[in-house]
């Protein structure tokens, strides 16, 4: 019974992390970059939003400011990677570390900023899960429509090809470096937007908010795509699947808590989920493949090919 009481909250929080996972999808699946900036940029989004609302800023302005801050963090990672030749995974780690200091500064040296939901008119809050779910559903629909429109434009197609085949992209005159910067900007903008909504939902922004966000995002992607790719392998269905993955993740998460797992072990659980999803295709291929002998290629004249 307790599980069903926890369900609306799990769905609401799952939607927020599902939105974040859309951002991770852009970097990880579209650009083929494992971007660790997100652990920092989701927190930046939360901090910017919480502090601005605390300072009396209109909520919508605070959310847009968080979005812009997130885009900036992605652009920084992108430039570290493309303009300075730092491997993408390291560029993300460097930005993430920088952001820890930045986020502390935004919070004014404290580790927490609270937003009082009774004093401010927030977009969503955990005190009302039903409207939180509606707000998140509308936001996610808007984000998916924007991405769908953008990724099928002349420019958007080249962003896809940049991750899919950089050699082909360059040969077709695509500025691969610029596309990576743009893509990482979009990705982290969405992640920070999710951070801003998360801060409102929880009523606070914490310096440790983003820790392990990339892993949760990847878990949502793997869970979601394992279903959605079977339905229809296209961009929009994949994005919806990713959001669904976020919801499933949080329902399982709540279920596991109710089973009595110590919350200390939740990060371990997230990491294990992702490790399993990454390992299964590899193991399938490596150990469980039906190892048939490949017959020699025979030419039409009956001779064996030597090349």
């Amino acid at each position: 019974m307790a599980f069903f009481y926890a369900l609306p909250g799990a769905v609401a929080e799952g939607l927020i992390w599902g939105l974040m996972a859309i951002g991770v999808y852009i970097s990880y699946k579209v650009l083929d970059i494992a971007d660790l900036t997100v652990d920092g940029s989701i927190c930046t989004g939360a901090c910017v939003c919480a502090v601005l609302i605390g300072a009396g800023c209109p909520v919508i302005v605070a959310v847009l400011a968080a979005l812009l801050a997130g885009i900036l963090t992605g652009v920084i990672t992108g430039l570290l990677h493309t303009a300075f030749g730092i491997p993408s995974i390291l560029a993300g780690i460097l930005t993430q570390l920088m952001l820890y200091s930045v986020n502390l500064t935004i919070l004014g040296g404290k580790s927490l900023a609270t937003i009082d939901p009774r004093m401010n008119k927030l977009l969503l809050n955990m005190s009302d899960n039903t409207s939180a779910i509606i707000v998140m559903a509308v936001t996610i629909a808007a984000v998916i429509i924007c991405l769908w429109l953008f990724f099928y434009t002349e420019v958007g197609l080249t962003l896809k090809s940049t991750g899919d085949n950089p050699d082909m992209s360059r040969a077709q005159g695509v500025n691969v470096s610029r596309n990576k910067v743009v893509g990482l900007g979009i990705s982290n903008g969405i992640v920070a937007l999710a951070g801003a909504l998360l801060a409102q939902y929880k009523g606070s922004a914490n310096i440790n908010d983003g820790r392990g966000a990339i892993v949760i995002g990847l878990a949502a992607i793997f869970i979601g795509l394992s279903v959605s790719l079977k339905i229809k392998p296209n961009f929009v269905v994949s994005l919806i699947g990713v959001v669904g993955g976020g919801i499933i993740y949080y329902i399982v998460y709540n279920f596991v808590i109710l089973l009595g797992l110590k919350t200390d072990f939740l990060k371990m659980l997230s990491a294990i989920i992702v490790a399993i999803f990454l390992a299964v295709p590899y193991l399938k291929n490596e150990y469980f493949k039906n190892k048939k002998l490949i017959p020699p290629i025979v030419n039409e004249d009956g001779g064996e090919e030597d090349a």
Partner: protein
Amino acid sequence: MLEIINLQKTFNPGTVNAKTALRGLNLTLDDGDFVTVIGGNGAGKSTLLNAISGVWKPDYGRIELDGVDITGMPEHKRAKFLGRVFQDPMKGTAPDMEIAENLAIASKRGLKRRLRWGVKISDRRQYKELLSSLELGLEDRLSTKVGLLSGGQRQAITLLMATLNRPKLLLLDEHTAALDPKTAAKVLELTDKIVSENNLTTLMITHNMHDAIKYGNRLIMMHEGNVVVDIRGEEKQKLTIEQLLQLFESSSGSKFTSDKVILSK
């Protein structure tokens, strides 16, 4: 017109693995030249093509295309002038994207890409026509992901993409080497058709002497980073493989060695 002046490139300079791939190479291509390039292992054929397409910068020398110095131009910028087909059929197309989307990206090579719909209905009609000219039955598979196609089909599409916007120079880097003989012959026929129909200036590396003689109006042989044989016109039409090997030996002073060249008659 392509003009290459004193082009030099050494890989891993100053190390035990130092390899001089181009030694002051000079080459001029006139408009409409269809040049086949042949040479032994490590002769510098692919290095030459990579230098022209800007994969890296040469150590010394100059590359000019229609009077424009492109020696230091970034790869994606000079793509405006160049059509390229690679040896590896996986390299020329985006596997996770539809045939139509691949063609749409190619149709904007060298042009400004805008926030307009990438594949319009009128585009699909045009692509369908182009694909039917390949005679591979791809015209009804515009929405198929390219990754599901065979190597030959992918090379044919790459060829189409390379020439969709007429390039000033078409670079073919052993583009049939990874295909089975039958498919290779078909892709070569297609290449010849596209090149002659559009009167494209073309540089085609091949490992097949027979093809090198059969196609194009000019043949060059490379050896140790230089052009050692350059035959054109009528003289090339009458060339035989034996003559070609003799020419190579007399001009380079060594026997022709390659583990790939096929001495088919």
